[in-house]
């Protein structure tokens, strides 16, 4: 018998009493989700900027290599579509990426994989990350978030909450473990 069938058989041999699924949760709503989003994002080491003036952001303005996936924001010294091998993205200073929505309770931004094409690695390999999110697209909590997400076959998607971090050395929090050293979320009016 294959291992697959042996495992499934042994599971089915166990008599486990039936148990029903619990009712869906509603979750906390915030009086001002935007304010909550900003507070949480700041607490996890990120930064919120209201308004779309990228040029005034130091992290963007002074970056030699910028890869942008946001329409209307030009890349600088990087041509994502000309690159064949994602390893060549090592050395990109800033990635500017559109996020679909933000989550107030945990400061996370949902980025569907399609947005990251042609190279999924861009969000994690860049030294700094700028996420551009429509200001009216902030949900309260993860229950609402998962209601919104559309699952396509063979896809990828990621929630990003702040910059890459570690506290593996004596519980000292350090930003920039492997991924982005900083994470700026820009809220833009739609």
């Amino acid at each position, binding site marked *: 018998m*294959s*291992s*697959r069938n042996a*495992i*499934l058989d*042994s599971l089915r*041999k*166990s008599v*486990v*009493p*039936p*148990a*029903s*699924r*619990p009712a869906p*949760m*509603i*979750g*906390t709503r915030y009086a001002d989700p935007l304010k909550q989003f900003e507070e949480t994002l700041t607490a*996890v080491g990120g930064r919120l900027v209201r308004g779309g003036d990228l040029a005034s952001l130091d992290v963007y303005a002074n970056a030699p290599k910028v890869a942008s996936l946001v329409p209307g924001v030009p890349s600088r010294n990087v041509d994502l579509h000309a690159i064949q091998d994602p390893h060549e993205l*090592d050395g990109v200073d800033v990635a500017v990426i559109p996020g679909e929505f933000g989550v107030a*309770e*945990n*400061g*996370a931004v949902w980025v569907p994989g399609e947005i990251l*094409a*042609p*190279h999924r*690695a861009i969000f*994690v*390999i860049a030294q700094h990350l700028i996420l551009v999110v429509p200001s009216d697209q902030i949900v309260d*909590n*993860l*229950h609402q978030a*998962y209601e919104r997400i559309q*699952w396509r*076959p*063979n*896809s*990828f*998607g*990621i*929630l*990003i*909450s*702040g910059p*890459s*971090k*570690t*506290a*593996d*050395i*004596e*519980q*000292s929090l*350090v930003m*920039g*473990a*492997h*991924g982005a050293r900083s994470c700026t979320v820009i809220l833009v009016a739609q």
Partner: protein
Amino acid sequence: MTGHAEKAAAFAANESRTHWHDESLWFVRVKRDRQAASIPEWEALREAASAIKTHTLSRLADYLEEFERNATANGIHVHWARDAAEHNAIVHQILASHNVTRLVKSKSMLTEECHLNPYLEARGIEVTDTDLGERIVQLRKEPPSHIVLPAIHLKKEDIGELFHIELGTEKGASDPKYLTEAARGHLRSKFMEAQAGLTGVNFAVAETGGVVVCTNEGNADMGTSLPPLHIACMGMEKLIPRAEDLAVFLRLLARSGTGQPVTTYTSHFNGPLPGGEMHVVIVDNGRSRILGQPTFRSSLGCIRCGACMNTCPVYRRSGGYSYGYIVPGPIGSILAPQRDPEKYASLPFASSLCGSCTDVCPVKIDLHQQLLAFRKKLVDLKVVPLQKRLGMAGLGFVLSRPWLYRMSGSLLRAVMPVLPRGLVYGAWNRWGVQRELPAMPKESFRDLIGKELS
């Protein structure tokens, strides 16, 4: 064979370091409390998480088949492994067929359980653990001492010294920021050279046929978005039915584990990279046996957050290595003896049964009840030390005979005060090593009540 108590005594011999270890973990527990308190529906969330796990376990085979169907439709290759040996062979076969000689891994307790690293290394594959804490213990040739904080037992000076030797950092440098930066550079070169990435699985979703991996560092994403080959290894209890269930578990996981509202990266892999390959290895390795035991079944609901370790007064003061199993602390003390009751017989006793683990568990596993139940099981299996068994048998004999109990009481009250200390606190009295017996009362409670009533 040395059990938990002996290894804990060796750890606790360094008093200041034990105190520091205790405080470090308590700090994480306090952060957890703050996060839990920030969610008014926290208890309802725990209830929901527990109910979802109970439901999933009630029809695990069906959900695994649903997962396999949907994963296959996503272009994922699904493999099944009955035990650790089969798991390791499958992973090696996938790597060998792609001529992989350099593998990067993000955290996976399952691969630790299966001892995958030495298996692959013996077959010529360089394995790099890329979680910073895991890389630290890998360079020290040690296992992790905690499932979420692998290097929690080390001081920054220890790591500075290690990095000086291994990565060429400045001698004597121990600033965490400096050391982390050095590790970032070192590990980035490993990511650039790797031909495949292996990850664990926090959650596998039957409905979508995908897996979810949570990290703060981004190492799982580096390891799966640069090389074209991704292998995800999961214990079969990682399954949840629907994507909406992720909300419940993700709201609990990081808050319980590290006191964060969510991990930095929550990556949903529902298929391979364009032009790449993705494999999921589903592992039993003793889990189906636990499913058949009503008392211990709910331990399969564990989401490996580490909260029970952080809060455990025994873990905090004895360190992860005192357990001698890859998952330490309260949950490990239930899982380890499932695997080998004799070898891990001391673990269910490495608890004060205070119940703090049960109170913080995000999926409401009745950890301290299971620890107690396991003690009974171990006594029945006769794998508990003879001294403990004889002591319990003697006590049982006396307590079940009221006349003998009364007689022993009056005898001890008379004799104990005049016995030489050396005799009372002799080597046989393990209980008295760090404790003083209370002074013997002149009269028993029975005597007092008798007088009161007469």
